[in-house]
């Protein structure tokens, strides 16, 4: 493996997350501390089979008339997160300070606005034509909701969407950090957004990966995943004395399995390489990590592969847990959502639990935190996100 240089850390000067746990950070924190599943029956469209999902049930704000062509559930979720406590003001302040051309947007999403595409195809199947208001490049394609945020916030910096399945928004964090480190931008808004749709429900069901009941990551009786939706936003800036009280993104490690399109490497080689690279880029050692937020989807193979990967990197693994038993698997949004979970743990001083756990799978054999551990003071948290195509990312976050 080539020797990597270190990358300059980024301050996280604002963050928000809308999920099935609620709209505000306060509600997300309460759910993490209560450690009770926020999963529910699907209400967005008739459920095709028995499962529960992490659905956002609050009413989403309307997209403004000038940006109507971007209107879709994904953009609505993003706008809802932007409207939470102080988030829009934080981006506006960065824009005023640095200039619109120095503020960028990087979105991570797996399926973008495909829920609206699916609805448009129903019209196509019936009437023989797409509905007049269908806007492929403003709702369906992977950059669509990034472009929406960019226009909504009147930004002029770089704007793109990263779509590498379930590692998308973890990789968006890495891309944003590089935009700062390479002095392209002075601030970057990272968005992780995915919304419920038929494609992912039927698709994961075809792979026999959907659990009929609330999922149980790392449990010996786990039966598969629950799909969720969410929008998480994080504002990254270069560290300076004014944001010294903010937590920092130290590095994002990335690696490919080079093994299979939908199954992880059985020994977790790509996942281990991503974790190792994150530590190397940050100039940290494994024993300095206080907690690992596991990707832990509750699929048989993924959890086993990740456990092997953790053992490969850590001689004595630190406390670990996954939150998908609370929020569901928010797919392309998961990297950003779980970065927010990790930031709450760093700032509020606790270790999140592993909702749904009854008995740790002996084959996984990790020190899983079943119930939240209060009065902890984690300083360094590693947060994993792995996706189809053997696409692995690991995010290293540090307390202020």
């Amino acid at each position, binding site marked *: 493996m*080539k020797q*990597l*240089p270190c*990358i300059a850390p980024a301050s996280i000067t604002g963050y928000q997350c809308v999920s099935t746990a609620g709209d505000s950070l306060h509600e997300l924190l309460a759910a993490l501390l209560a450690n009770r599943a926020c999963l529910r029956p699907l209400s967005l469209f008739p459920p*095709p089979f028995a499962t529960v999902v992490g659905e956002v049930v609050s009413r989403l704000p309307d997209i403004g008339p000038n940006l109507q062509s971007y209107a879709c559930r994904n953009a609505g979720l993003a706008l809802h997160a932007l409207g939470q406590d102080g988030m829009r003001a934080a981006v506006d302040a960065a824009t005023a300070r640095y200039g619109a*051309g120095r503020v960028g947007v990087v979105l991570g999403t*797996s399926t973008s606005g*495909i829920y609206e*595409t*699916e609805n448009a*195809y*129903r019209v*196509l*199947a019936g009437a023989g*034509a*797409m509905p007049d208001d*269908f806007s*492929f*490049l403003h709702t369906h*394609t*992977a*950059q669509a909701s990034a472009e929406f945020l960019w226009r909504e916030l009147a930004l*002029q*910096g*770089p*704007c*793109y*969407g*990263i*779509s*590498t*399945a379930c590692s998308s928004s973890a990789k968006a964090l890495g*891309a944003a950090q*590089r*935009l700062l*480190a*390479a002095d*392209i931008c002075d601030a970057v808004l990272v968005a992780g957004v995915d919304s419920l749709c*038929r*494609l992912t429900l*039927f*698709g994961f*069901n*075809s*792979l026999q990966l959907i659990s009929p009941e609330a999922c149980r990551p790392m449990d010996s009786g786990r039966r598969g995943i629950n799909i969720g939706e969410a929008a998480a936003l994080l504002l990254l800036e270069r560290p300076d004395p004014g944001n010294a009280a903010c937590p920092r993104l130290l590095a994002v490690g*990335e*690696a*490919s399995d*080079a*093994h299979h*399109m*939908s199954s992880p490497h059985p020994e977790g*080689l*790509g996942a281990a*390489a991503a974790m190792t690279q994150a530590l190397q880029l940050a100039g940290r050692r494994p024993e300095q990590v206080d907690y690992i937020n596991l990707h832990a989807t509750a699929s048989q193979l993924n959890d086993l592969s990740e456990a092997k990967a953790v053992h490969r990197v850590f001689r004595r693994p630190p406390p670990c847990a996954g939150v998908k038993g609370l929020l569901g698997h928010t797919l392309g949004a998961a990297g950003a959502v779980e970065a927010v979970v990790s930031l709450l743990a760093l700032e509020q001083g606790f270790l999140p639990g592993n909702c749904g756990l009854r008995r740790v799978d002996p084959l996984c054999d990790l020190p899983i935190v079943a119930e939240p551990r209060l009065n902890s003071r984690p300083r360094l948290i590693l947060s994993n996100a792995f*996706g*189809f*195509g*053997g*696409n692995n990312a690991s995010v290293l976050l540090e307390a202020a």
Partner: protein
Amino acid sequence: MDCMSLLGFGACAPDAGFRAGLPFPADDITREAMPAMLRRRASRSTQMAFSAALRACSQAGRSPAGLPAVFASAAGEIQITDQLCLELTRAEPMVSPAAFHNSVQNTVAGYWSIAQRCTQPATALAAGDDTFAMGLLEAWCQLACLGGELLLVCYDERWPAYLAPGRGQVEFASALLLAAGGWPDAVMQLGRPVYATSAVDEFSPPAGSDPVLAVLPLLARAAGGASVQPSLPVGRNWLVDVHKR
């Protein structure tokens, strides 16, 4: 980092008429670009991207296995996604596992890493009309922060006509093998992509306005002689300085 170096490039344009009109060498889909097992199931995107990427690697004399890769595509695996969306309109949809995992935007990235046994990072991005420009910017940032060399592949297969009428009708892939800093034997050197606050006037790629064709001025310059004009459009609002001896 002051500049990045283009060490090799490739292009794939399956339509012979379109290919003949290009001002730089381009290939049809190269059957040998992927193992037979993969070729049978591979999308047009995957076949074109592999063809262009292997050409760029061979031109530069580099092994694909050691290179991080950036895959940029405005619409990704739109043909199989279209089939899935049609299937999902049925009362009892039948979605196959392979169709599902082959519909993700990083399908090409995944198959590339598997076929080339490449464990380096691979990313997949989209940016509408600025897809190539943002791919180039992502490449710039990776090279500026991490050094070394990488592969940038930009591709789009044909979009079903009812999705975006008049757009996405050209099948095309390009690949650039890029290195951090200035290399004496480089095809040419590229500066940092910059945003032009007004839309770039001269940005009118031939054969319509497909995002995947935004690379054409750059490839034409790479294949041509020494040039007068230093600055090239790479997207609707993005320019890059090029230096070719």
